[in-house]
C-alpha cells in the first residue's frame, strides 16, 4: 500500500488475495487552475482489497476516484489498472495520451457509485440495470434481465423493478445504483461518499448492502466515506489523505486506534 515504507507493512498484516497490483498511481499530479489537488501521488491497491480513503474535504479523495473513472485526466503521472495504462497508451515505445477505444477497453473493469446516485430518471429500475449490459457488454435482453433480477434481490429491491427512480427513496435509489454498477461485473468498484446525500435513517440499509458485497465477493473496492465504523468494518487498508498526499496508511485497527501522524489524530478526533 501507499508510499514505500508502508508497503511492506501492510503486506504483512493484510496479505493480498493474489498479490497483484490492480491499481497503481505513479507520481500523479492533478491541478485545478493553480490549486494542486493531488501532489505527485503514488499508491497502489492489490486485487480484491477494500481500501478506504479518509481525510478532510478538499484533500483529493474524490479526485482519485474521478481520475480512475476517467471523468478527468491527470496533468502529470500515470495510472494503471490491471496492468494497463488508463489515460495513456504505448505507441512505438512511447507513452502517448490514450485514444477513446483504449480508454473504453480499460474502463470496462471499473464501476462507480456516485454521491447523487445518478440513476437515469427516464428509465425504470429494470432498464437502468440492463441498458449498459445489453449495449456495452452485448448481453441478450433475457440474460441482462436475469442478472438484473439477481442483483435487485441482492440489494433487497425486487418488488421495485418496474418503478421509476423518482418513485424510490434516496436509500433505495442508491441501492439500485450499486446494483447498476455491479451489473457490468467490474473488477473495481469505486464508492464516492455514497451515503452523504441520504437521510440518516436510510444510511444503514445502503451500508449493509455494501458490507454484504464486500464480504461475499472478491471485487476490489475503493471507498471515500465519512462513515468511520463502516470503513473499519470493510477495509483491509485505510489511506489518510491531506493536501493531496497520503500521509499515513495501514490496517483500520491501526489507523483508527493508534494513528502515527498528528494530522490523522486531529482528523479522527473531529469525525469520530
Amino acid at each position: 500500500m501507499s508510499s514505500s515504507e508502508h508497503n511492506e507493512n501492510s503486506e504483512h498484516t493484510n496479505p493480498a488475495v493474489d498479490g497483484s497490483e490492480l491499481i497503481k498511481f505513479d507520481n500523479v499530479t492533478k491541478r485545478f487552475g493553480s490549486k494542486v489537488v493531488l501532489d505527485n501521488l503514488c499508491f497502489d491497491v492489490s486485487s480484491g482489497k477494500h481500501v478506504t480513503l479518509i481525510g478532510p474535504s478538499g484533500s483529493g479523495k474524490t479526485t482519485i476516484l474521478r481520475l480512475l473513472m476517467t471523468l478527468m485526466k491527470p496533468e502529470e503521472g500515470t495510472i494503471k489498472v490491471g496492468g494497463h495504462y488508463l489515460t495513456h497508451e504505448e505507441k512505438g515505445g512511447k507513452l502517448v495520451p490514450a485514444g477513446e477505444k483504449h480508454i473504453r477497453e480499460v474502463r470496462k473493469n471499473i464501476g462507480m457509485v456516485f454521491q447523487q446516485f445518478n440513476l437515469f430518471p427516464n428509465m425504470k429500475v429494470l432498464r437502468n440495470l440492463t441498458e449498459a449490459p445489453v449495449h456495452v457488454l452485448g448481453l441478450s435482453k433475457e440474460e441482462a434481465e436475469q442478472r438484473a433480477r439477481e442483483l435487485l434481490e441482492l440489494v433487497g429491491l425486487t418488488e421495485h423493478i418496474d418503478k421509476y427512480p423518482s418513485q424510490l427513496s434516496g436509500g433505495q435509489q442508491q441501492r439500485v445504483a450499486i446494483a447498476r454498477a455491479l451489473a457490468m461485473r467490474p473488477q473495481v468498484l469505486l464508492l464516492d461518499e455514497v451515503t452523504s446525500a441520504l437521510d440518516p435513517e436510510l444510511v444503514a440499509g445502503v451500508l449493509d448492502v455494501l458490507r454484504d458485497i464486500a464480504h461475499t465477493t472478491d471485487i476490489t473496492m475503493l471507498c471515500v466515506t465519512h462513515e468511520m465504523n463502516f470503513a473499519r468494518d470493510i477495509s483491509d487498508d485505510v489511506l489518510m489523505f491531506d493536501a493531496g498526499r497520503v500521509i499515513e496508511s495501514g490496517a483500520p485497527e491501526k489507523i483508527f486506534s493508534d494513528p502515527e501522524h498528528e494530522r490523522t489524530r486531529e482528523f479522527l478526533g473531529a469525525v469520530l
Partner: protein
Amino acid sequence: MEWDWSAVDDFMPEFWDGVLTTLQVLALGSLISFGLGLVWAMALRARTRFITWPVALINEFIRNTPLLIQLFFFFFVLPEWDVQFSTLTTGVLAIGLHYSTYTAQVYRAGIDGVPVGQWEAATALNLPRGRTWFAVILPQAIRRVIPALGNYVISMLKDTPMLAVIGVLEMLQRARQQGAETFQFVEPITVVGVAFILIAYPASVLMRFLERRLVQQ
C-alpha cells in the same frame, strides 16, 4: 361599410385551399426545424472545433438574417445551381431551416439542463457516445423543451404569409387575390385572421398543458 356574407361564401373554396397550404408549410416546416435543430444542437456539443465552429457560424448567420432574404435567396439562387423545387418546397425548406436555428437554441438549453451526473453515469457504465445521447440525455432534454418548441410552431404559423413573396398561395395570399378580383378585401382578410386565431389559440393552450405535464414534474 357593410359586411357581405356572400363575399365570405365566395371566398370559401380558395380559403380552404389556402388553409391546406398553410398547414402543409407548418407541418413540414416544423418537422425540418425540429430535426435539423437537433442536429445543430448535438453538433454544437461535438468534441472537435472543426465541427462546432462552422456549425455555430452557420447558425448565427441564419438566425441573424431575415427570413424574407432567405426566401428570396432560395427562390432565385437555387435554380442558378440547377436545383429546381416547387415554390412550396422552397418555402418549406427556407422556413424550416430558418426556424431550425431557433429550435437548436431550445434543444441546447434542454441539453444543458440535464445534470452533468447523467453524463458521468453514462461514462461510468461505458455507454457508447450515441447511446448516451439517444437513451440518456435526449429523452430527458427534449421532454423539458417540448413546450418551448411548440411556441416556435405558433411563431412559424404567423410567419407563413411571408412565403407569399415567392408565390406560395397560403391563406393570406388567397385572401389578397380574392380581394383584388372582387374589390372586397375586408371579408376574406377577416376570415383569414379568424383562421389564424382558431389554429394558434388551441395550439398555445395545448403547449401550456404540456408545460404543466412535462416540465414541472
